[in-house]
C-alpha cells in the first residue's frame, strides 16, 4: 500500500511539473462558438499564434455564443470570440468586455433535403421560412432549430421575427424541432428527419464534404443572412475579471487583426472547399472592394456607428486608428453622406 502511495506521489509530482511546464506560460482562455471550433480553424489559429508568441498558451473552450458569453461574464474565460452582435453589445454594456473588433464574416445558409419538399429554393430567407412553416403545418416538413442560445440560434430567432413570427410560439408547434446542441449535431438531426435548418456555411461545408449529410444549400446570401464574428477582451476593471489575462487577450486581438491573422481567415478551407470558410473583415475594409457589403456589415454589427464605441475601449487606441480619416471619407463618399449617416461620420472623425 505504502509503495503504491509513494509511486503515486512521485508520478503526481512529475506530472504536475510536466503540465505546468518549467517556465510557466501565460494561459489564455478563449470561450468561443462551435462553428469556429468544429471546422478546425481554431486549431490552426492556436498553432500559428503560439509559434509567433512562444510565451503564449491559448485554450479554446467551445460553447454556443450564449454560453460562451456567460462563461466570460463569470470570469472563467479571458476573452470571447463570438457572432451575435446584440448580445455582444449587452456584454460590453454590462461592463464585462472592452476593445471589440470585428474580425471576419460569412453568410448563413438555409439547407434542406435535396428534393426540397417545401419548395423554397432560391427564395429570400424570410419567404423561405414562411413557406417552411406553412408546409410544416400541413405536416410535410420539419424545421430543426439549434435551440441552444447560440449565435446561430439568435440569428434564426431574428429571421422569424423579421417574418413576423415569434419563435417562442413556434416551438409549441409539432413541425418545429429543437436540437439543443452544436451545429454538426443539429445538421445531422435535420438530415435524419429530412428537415430544414439554418447553418453557418463553414460547418455545413465541413459536414457535406465529409458525407455526413445530404442536405443541400437552398437559400444563401442576402443581408439578413450575414454572419459577423467579433473578438472582445474581458474588461480588466470588472470585479469578476481581475484575474483575467488582459495582456494575452490583447495580444490575440492584435494578432487576429494583423495581416497575418487576417490571412489565416482568407486561406482557411480554400484548398478543401474551394472558398474560405470565414472571410477576413479587415481585409475587406482595406480593399474597399465591396462597399455595399461593408455597409451591410456595419448596419448589422456596428453599435452607434462604431464597431466599439469609445466608452468600451481600454488602452487600445492603436486598434482603432487603422481606419484613417481618408478611408472614412471614402466610405462616406461611397455610401453617400445622407442626413442619417452624418452623425456616424462625425463620430468616427472624432475618434
Amino acid at each position, binding site marked *: *500500500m505504502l509503495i*503504491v*502511495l509513494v509511486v*503515486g506521489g512521485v*508520478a*503526481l509530482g512529475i*506530472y504536475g511539473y510536466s*503540465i505546468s511546464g518549467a517556465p510557466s506560460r501565460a494561459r489564455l*482562455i478563449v470561450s468561443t462558438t462551435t462553428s469556429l471550433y*468544429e471546422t478546425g480553424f481554431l*486549431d490552426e489559429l*492556436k498553432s500559428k499564434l503560439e509559434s509567433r508568441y512562444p510565451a503564449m498558451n491559448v*485554450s*479554446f*473552450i*467551445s460553447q454556443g455564443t450564449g454560453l460562451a458569453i456567460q462563461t466570460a461574464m*463569470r*470570469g*472563467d474565460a479571458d476573452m470571447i470570440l463570438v457572432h451575435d452582435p446584440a448580445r455582444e453589445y449587452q456584454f460590453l454594456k454590462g461592463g464585462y468586455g472592452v476593445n471589440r473588433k470585428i474580425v471576419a464574416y460569412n453568410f448563413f445558409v438555409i439547407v434542406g433535403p435535396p428534393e426540397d419538399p417545401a419548395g423554397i429554393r432560391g427564395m429570400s430567407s424570410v419567404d423561405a421560412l414562411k413557406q417552411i412553416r406553412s408546409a410544416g403545418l400541413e405536416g410535410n416538413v420539419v424545421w430543426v432549430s439549434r435551440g441552444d442560445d447560440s449565435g446561430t440560434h439568435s440569428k434564426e430567432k431574428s429571421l422569424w421575427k423579421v417574418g413576423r413570427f415569434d419563435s417562442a410560439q413556434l416551438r409549441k408547434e409539432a413541425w418545429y424541432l429543437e436540437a439543443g*446542441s*452544436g451545429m*454538426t*449535431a443539429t445538421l*445531422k438531426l435535420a438530415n435524419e428527419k429530412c428537415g430544414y435548418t439554418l447553418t453557418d456555411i463553414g460547418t455545413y461545408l*465541413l*459536414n457535406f464534404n*465529409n458525407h*455526413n449529410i445530404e442536405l443541400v444549400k437552398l437559400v444563401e446570401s442576402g443581408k439578413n443572412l450575414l454572419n459577423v464574428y467579433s473578438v472582445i477582451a474581458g474588461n480588466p476593471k470588472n470585479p*469578476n*475579471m481581475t*484575474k*483575467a489575462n488582459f495582456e494575452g487577450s490583447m495580444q490575440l486581438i492584435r494578432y487576429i487583426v494583423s495581416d497575418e491573422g487576417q490571412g489565416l481567415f482568407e486561406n482557411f478551407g480554400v484548398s478543401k472547399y474551394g472558398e474560405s470558410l470565414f472571410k477576413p473583415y479587415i481585409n475587406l475594409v482595406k480593399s474597399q472592394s465591396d462597399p455595399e457589403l461593408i455597409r451591410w456589415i456595419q448596419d448589422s454589427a456596428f453599435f452607434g456607428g462604431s464597431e466599439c464605441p469609445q466608452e468600451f475601449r481600454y488602452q487600445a487606441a492603436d486598434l482603432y486608428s487603422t481606419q484613417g480619416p481618408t478611408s472614412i471619407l471614402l466610405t462616406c463618399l461611397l455610401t453617400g453622406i445622407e442626413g442619417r449617416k452624418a452623425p456616424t461620420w462625425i463620430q468616427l472623425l472624432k475618434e
Partner: protein
Amino acid sequence: MRAVDLILSGDPEILSITALSLSISGLGTLLSCVWSIPISAGLALRNFRGKRITKSLFNALIGIPTVALGLFLYLLLSRSGPLGYFQLLYTPWAIMIGQSILVTPIVVSFSTSALESVDPDLRSLARTLGASDLQTYEVIIKEGIWGVTLAVIAAFNRAFAELGVAMMLGGNIRNVTRVLTTAIALETSRGDIALSVALTLILLAITMSLSVVVNLIRRSGP
C-alpha cells in the same frame, strides 16, 4: 476499418489523449485513496454512533450523476466562485479533483465491506498481542488488501469512463484536458466517426481488460 488503422498506426493525437486520460483518472483515483482508505478502515473497524447511516450514505452516493457533481464543482471552482482564487477550472487538476471525489463512495463502500469481511478474530488476536490501533489497522488492511485493490480498480474504471466531470471541469481543451470520453463526444458531434470509433475501442479495451483483471483477482484472491 479506418478506426483500426488509426490505432495501429499509433496516431500521436490518439496516444496523447489516451495517456492524458490514463494519468488524470489514475492520479484522481490515487488521490481519492488518500482519504477513502482511512475512512473505510475507520468505518469497518470502529464503532460509533451513526455508523450505519454513514455507510448507507456512501452506498447511496456511488451512483451520483457525474453532471450533478460536475455542476457543483464548476460553481465552486469558477473564478467567481468560492475557490476561484486557485484558478483550477479548465485544468487537468480540476478533473483530477472532481474524479477523486466522484470515486470516493466507491472506494469507501467496497473497501469497507472488504475489511469488514476480514476475520474478526484476527483483530482481537492483534490486540491481545499488544498491537496499537494503527498497527491493528495495518494488519487488517494487509489481510483485506485484495478487496481494497478491487475497490480501487473499480473506482479507476468509473473515473476513466465518465464524461460529465471531465467535460464540465476540463472544458475539453486539446492537449490539456481532452481525455478519451470528451474527445469521443467532440469527434462524434464534429462528424469524425472513424476517430470516435478508434477512441471508443481504446476506452473499451482498457475498461474491459481491467474488469477481467478484477475477476481474476477475485477468483485467485484469498
